[in-house]
């Protein structure tokens, strides 16, 4: 009796009860699909965030407070010094001015949208780009400003309306460019950026900066981050701190996978139920086929041969189920990816895990029925037919 013989007999036995085999396989499909789907979606979300980080680079934000609790201020030449650090891709320095941006001079009070004077290149330093309009040089001595994405939404600044007037108190500014959203939704998104040249001339800005934004490739963010405080403040009196956007993003990636364990637990329950389903199918098959088992034993099948036949049936059911489950998991992953707007990521290990789970189900489910079938004395099995 070759393996081909066993396979042919197992397939034949399953074909004899197609509905039952299909339902057991469906149970396996749900279990495997749940596992593959959970892992696929979480790796897709994680992969999307990490991919974003890799392509945009990391933004390091340097600020500090001095011993008396006030905000530490840095001279603008810090920008040029940071620029000389290798691998740095963009630097800008900002200073928060008093007041907030409004849509009209008739509105008073706080809008939550900060007015920042800047030196350097805001877009390249914050990992954003100009989505509408044009960039502004920091030396410009005109009231032409850039606006963060959320601030633009809040003030009703749209591409179509550029250039558009906004106000801070009685002072009018002209928005000429809108920035794209930052990867981690920082204060940048809620700010209006006024060129340092104009702020010095007309808004009481003294040229001292409170924040330096530095963009570096992700791989260098630790190294550059450790160099920044000493580069900007050799004396070390300003108490400068470096905040990495990547840490926020990585935390976000962790959050995205925080429920992975819980969902995997639920998926494991589904797998267990699937195994019980397959086991039930096989136990029924053993009872139903006592006579067949007896005849096969009388014809010369070994105990192992009978057990092997049932285990093969379980493996076929489980593999069919896992194939459907993999497709289901892949579909869920793609839906998740489309929803998140990132490419789907389904590591090969996950697919292999799906197959391994299926084989595990087959083994778990078939051992007991197979042993029972093998233990049937042939004469006993034959008696049921008479």
């Amino acid at each position: 009796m070759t393996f081909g013989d066993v396979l042919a007999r197992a397939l034949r036995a399953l074909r004899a009860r197609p509905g039952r085999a299909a339902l057991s396989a469906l149970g396996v499909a749900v279990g495997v699909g749940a596992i593959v789907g959970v892992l696929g979606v979480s790796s897709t979300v994680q992969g999307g965030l990490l991919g974003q980080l890799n392509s945009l680079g990391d933004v390091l934000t340097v600020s500090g407070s001095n011993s008396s609790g006030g905000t530490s201020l840095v001279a603008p030449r810090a920008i040029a010094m940071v620029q000389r650090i290798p691998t740095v891709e963009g630097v800008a320095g900002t200073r928060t001015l008093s007041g907030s941006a409004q849509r009209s001079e008739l509105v008073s009070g706080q809008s939550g949208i900060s007015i920042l004077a800047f030196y350097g290149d805001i877009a390249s330093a914050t990992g954003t780009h100009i989505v509408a309009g044009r960039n502004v040089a920091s030396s410009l001595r005109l009231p032409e400003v850039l606006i963060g994405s959320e601030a633009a939404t809040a003030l009703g600044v749209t591409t179509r309306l550029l250039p558009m007037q906004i106000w801070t108190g009685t002072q009018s500014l002209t928005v000429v460019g809108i920035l794209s959203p930052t990867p981690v939704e920082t204060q940048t998104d809620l700010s209006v950026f006024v060129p340092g040249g104009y702020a010095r001339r007309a808004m009481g800005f003294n040229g001292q900066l409170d924040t330096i934004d530095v963009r570096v490739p992700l791989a260098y963010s630790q190294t550059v981050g450790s160099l920044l405080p000493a580069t900007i403040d050799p004396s070390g009196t300003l108490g400068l701190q470096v905040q990495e956007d990547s840490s926020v993003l990585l935390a976000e990636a962790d959050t995205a996978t925080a429920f992975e364990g819980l969902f995997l637990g639920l998926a494991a329950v589904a797998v267990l139920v699937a195994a019980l389903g397959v086991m039930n199918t096989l136990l029924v098959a053993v009872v139903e086929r006592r006579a067949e088992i007896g005849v096969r034993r009388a014809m010369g099948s070994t105990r192992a041969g009978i057990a092997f036949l049932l285990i093969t049936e379980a493996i076929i059911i489980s593999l069919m189920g896992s194939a459907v489950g993999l497709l289901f998991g892949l579909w869920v992953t793609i839906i998740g990816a489309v929803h998140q707007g990132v490419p789907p990521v389904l590591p090969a290990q996950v697919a292999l895990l799906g197959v391994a789970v299926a084989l595990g189900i087959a083994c778990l489910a078939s051992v007991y029925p197979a042993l029972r079938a093998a233990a049937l004395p042939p004469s006993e099995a034959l008696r049921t037919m008479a």
Partner: protein
Amino acid sequence: MKPPVVELRQVTKTFRAGAGVTALSDVSLTVAAGERVAVVGKSGSGKSTLLAIAGSLERPSQGEVVIDGRVLRELSDRAISQLRGRRIGFVFQSFNLLQRLTALENVAEALMYGGVRGAARADRAGELLERFGLGGRTSHFPHQLSGGEQQRVAIARALANGPALLIADEPTGDLDPESGATVVDALLAAGESTAVLVATHSPEVAARLDRRVRLDGGLIVPVSG
């Protein structure tokens, strides 16, 4: 004297179910190669148990069984299974064909367990069915065959691997006398060296065999008349 094919030495079989029924007690029996033996007796006298033990389907509670020169007690499941597949053929009262297989496939299945490789099985099975007058029935399923035909398929299956021992438990019990006669013809068509052990209630069937063994209450008793 031809060599014995099956020897039962002081075999006792007790079933543990219920009050511990003794189905056979201290039975010794030797069947020589080519010998045709009828086992007769009332229902419950132990005929089926004797046949099951002589065919290795049951193990005795006490005593020794030797089939084809091999002591069963010393054999592994694999060795006994192989012995059963190649050296022993079984025919049952209710035919016990595999219902989902055609006549040809039923016979081919026995050839598979007898160690015949894939392609040769169908040819051999076809020849066997032809020999038993079932050449036109090869692709029929059991439920499409008459009782007599089913039993002849079962005999073809039992003889497929040229066994040393053919065991038939009430082979004509479910058949009308005419079909029964053709089935006995088929049984007696077994090869010269094949020993045949038939349990039967039918005096006509018993009369066509070489020797009669009578069982009563699990004991072998002298044959009257």
